């Protein structure tokens, strides 16, 4: 079972490395959105520090949506997905491998590039560390919930727009707790622990339910 998990993970990473543009699209989209805000709202240091958490998270939500449509689409078109449904392994395990690959390619780079946002928005080192940690906790949730939407809209015309409408409302808890923690960490009396606990709970919840929900959605889409 774990053998197939590694096979899919390795194959998806290998495919992505042979088409690097797709990884960079997501990363540069994130960087550009984040750097547009200071140009639009001005360079007031206090204000930038105040909006930084929200801007970083909204940019991360949108960036992770960019590659969602392709998560299953290529495998669907060339028949690989059909073959995955016919393997003796549980489909949710295979789906989890694809989610992991999606996170490694779109979520992890955002975590690593977060210090750039910090510098751009005059954040303190401590806040930057909190931001990276919250992104590390939150971005896997984005990939996992996003996969459900990608599976549900598979093969539909205009599926890309539909994914956003389905998935963005579900991203709200991640946005609230994720940016909330970063804001708290800038305050003297701030306490980020509740945010971390709630986001972790949300992560565990989606880890349990999203592979199963995505697998069910894929079965319906392929019928």
């Amino acid at each position, binding site marked *: 079972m774990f053998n197939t998990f590694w*096979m899919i993970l390795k194959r998806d990473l290998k495919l992505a490395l042979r088409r690097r543009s797709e990884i960079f699209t997501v990363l540069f989209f994130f960087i550009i959105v984040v750097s547009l805000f200071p140009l639009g709202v001005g360079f007031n240091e206090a204000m930038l520090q105040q909006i930084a958490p929200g801007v970083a998270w909204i940019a991360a939500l949108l960036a992770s949506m960019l590659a969602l449509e392709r998560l299953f689409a290529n495998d669907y078109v060339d028949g690989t997905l059909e073959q995955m449904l016919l393997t003796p392994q549980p489909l949710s395990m295979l789906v989890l491998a694809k989610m992991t690959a999606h996170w490694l390619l779109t979520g992890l780079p955002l975590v690593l590039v977060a210090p750039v946002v910090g510098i751009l928005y005059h954040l303190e080192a401590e806040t930057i560390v909190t931001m990276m940690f919250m992104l590390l906790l939150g971005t896997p949730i984005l990939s996992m919930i996003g996969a459900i939407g990608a599976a549900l809209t598979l093969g539909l015309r205009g599926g890309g727009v539909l994914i956003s409408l389905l998935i963005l409302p579900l991203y709200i808890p991640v946005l609230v707790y994720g940016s909330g923690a970063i804001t708290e960490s800038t305050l003297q009396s701030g306490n980020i622990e509740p945010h971390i606990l709630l986001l972790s709970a949300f992560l565990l919840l989606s880890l349990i339910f999203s592979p199963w929900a995505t697998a069910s959605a894929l079965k319906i889409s392929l019928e």
Partner: protein
Amino acid sequence: MSLTVSNLQCTRGDRQLFSGLNLQLSAKQLLFLEGRNGSGKTTLIRTLCALFVADKGDILWQGQSIEEHLETYHNSLFYLGHLNAIKGDLTALENLRFNHTMSGQDCSDDELLDALERIGLFGYEDYPTRQLSQGQKRRVALARLIVNKSPLWILDEPFVALDIAAVELLQQIISQHIETGGMAIITTHQAVPLTEGKVQHLNLDDYAATSGMESYV
């Protein structure tokens, strides 16, 4: 080993494709699935793979319902449809290795290379498959048949896009599979000569719903 289908009925959208379909397939048997275009050959094949849910009827593998014992059934099943399930960015060998491992069977790289050589792709193992022709891509997909050990093969139009040499080779591979105790269901108009074993023909037009037929006559 046996596959039993009884009283199967399938509907696609509003149109009933066939009803009251029965078939029985045991070891060393080959079933040709025939019927005009749109008679539901692909739907029947997808139903037999448990990719599509029938309205009515039972499909039993070794006497057990395939839905209740899905893992056992998928372990004994090899399916190849119209789509090749290969990635243009991966080489022929990488594609074969991935697809073969996915079906839960182990195989050394040497065996995989032998399979590619036998299917006529010697020298093409390390090319990205997007550089190969349609027929060669189909051969990459069909190379899985050589290494596959599942008893039941379900092949939807396997001869499409192949040249004469490849058609002959595929006929050999299929008849070898049947002779060594396997079974296969194939939709095609190409005859597969067998030296032993039994060939069945099933024409879906015989099971077509009467109400749907009238508009075509």
